[in-house]
């Protein structure tokens, strides 16, 4: 199993979710995060003094998957999250050793 973790623009969340749902993904986890990267932050001004926010609001989606589905899902996320502008985000894939559904106690791929 793998854990696919995508960092995307917040306003793409709705689309990514729909795309994933079409691709048959039911379970996922969403976290509000802030990211730094190449994308430059907004400049805010308060009473004449200026400062730039270097952390930009992003959304992190985590999905636990069987190994085979990984490539397909990555593509799905990419298509839905892509705008072509700097700041589109990243997808990270890491190993997942096991998984358990709390309700039933099922383990492994059955539990996803």
């Amino acid at each position, binding site marked *: 199993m793998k854990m696919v973790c995508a960092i995307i623009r917040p306003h793409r969340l709705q689309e990514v979710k729909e795309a994933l749902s079409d691709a048959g993904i039911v379970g996922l986890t969403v976290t509000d995060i802030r990211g730094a990267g190449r994308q430059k932050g907004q400049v*805010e*001004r*308060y*009473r*004449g*003094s*200026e*400062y730039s*926010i270097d952390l930009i609001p992003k959304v992190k989606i985590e999905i636990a998957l069987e190994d085979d589905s990984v490539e397909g899902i990555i593509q799905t996320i990419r298509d839905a999250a892509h705008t072509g502008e700097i700041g589109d985000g990243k997808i990270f894939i890491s190993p997942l050793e096991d998984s358990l559904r709390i309700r039933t106690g099922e383990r492994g791929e059955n539990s996803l």
Partner: protein
Amino acid sequence: MFQKRWLLITISMFFLLCAGYTFAQPEIIQDSESLNPTEQRIARLEAQLEASEGAADNSWILVCSALVLMMTGPGLALFYGGLVRKKNVLSTMMQSFILMAIVTVVWAIVGFSLAFASGNAFIGGFDHLFMNGVGAAPDPDYASTFPLQTFMIFQLMFAIITPALITGAFAERMKFSAMVAFMILWVLVVYCPLAHMVWGKGGFLNAFTGNGIPALDFAGGTVVHISSGVSALICAIFLGKRLGYPKEPMPPHSVVLSTVGACLLWIGWFGFNAGSALSSGSLATNAFVTTHFSAAAATLGWIIVEWIKTGKPSVLGAISGSVAGLVAVTPAAGFVTPMSALLIGLISGAFCFFMVSKVKSWFGYDDSLDAFGIHGAGGTLGALLTGIFATSAINEVFTNAEGTAMPVGLVDGNWRQFINQGAGVLITIVIAVVGTYIILKIVNATLGLRVREDEEITGLDLSQHGEEGYNM
């Protein structure tokens, strides 16, 4: 612990209060009705009419008192509370709220007497200690149509908001106990004498009953705004910068709260300025209108300059501008025409933008919420502009022996008034600077003014009050 010591002081103050309680003689309210004969109905009518006039004025001043209290809580509490970081929101709101309580007690015991009882040109006396002689009877030196008690409570609301304005300068870093001690002393040492000089019988700067310099201050430009603004500056410099300032950004945690606060300040200011007419007639209307016009024009003044300079008009700019305009028109409200108020507002909005966005960073002091940049600077500007725009067409301040109105401000042709205003400003600044500095020295030496570094990092809400603003 220093805190314990201070507690003792407070407690002993309350024993004092109880002692004074026995001393204070409540005023007896009498409704004697005894004249009857047919033609003398007129006499009764006259008496009743006076009472009736009194009823209208009395309810008006009570409403205005409520409005002025609303300026401090929730008005200023929200305005300032929104401007600080989340971790300091409660402590900042508390500074306004606790002053509603503390100044009231101080005022009841001794403050009102020091400010408004008969005394010399610089300070009042002790006749009204413990509210003695403050009852249903009017004091014609202040207002003949309503109880002195009404005048007392109206003035109390001013004595509450003035120190509350200062808290903007030392927000996010002052000990709560030190703030309490500082404020009690400040009200007694700086505010009461100033109020006496400007509004008290025989006060040195009182244009109506004094015989020193006749400075015009309709609703407290010098007493309230310059005094608090300048004291704020001294505090900001004395306490030093907040940790991380100016390197670390310290944006307002909720401009939403501040906007609500600014609106309530605007509304409450009608009580502040129009109530200062001390009657509900056409002078109150004029003060109401000038107040509103100046706030509106100053909002635009700030916004327009900001838009040109930075490319975007900000909400914080708009609300700051409105407060600047309200400050500037305060000394002028009952002396100038509405169209003059528009100009006063426009100028003050632009001027305070400049003070806050440029001058502050030139000098590098950390006036956290711009108490000086808006109240000190705006108040000074307003006091001077009053000398220019005050006119006998609105208020016949000066009359000659025959009772004919004399010119008032520069527009009337009386350039002297401008000088008098300047003198009033200067005297106020000197008193505020010296008084504040001495008090800070004393409090710093005893309680210590500033919280520990780790307390500042944690935030004053947790370190001073053991609470958090939001548990979401």
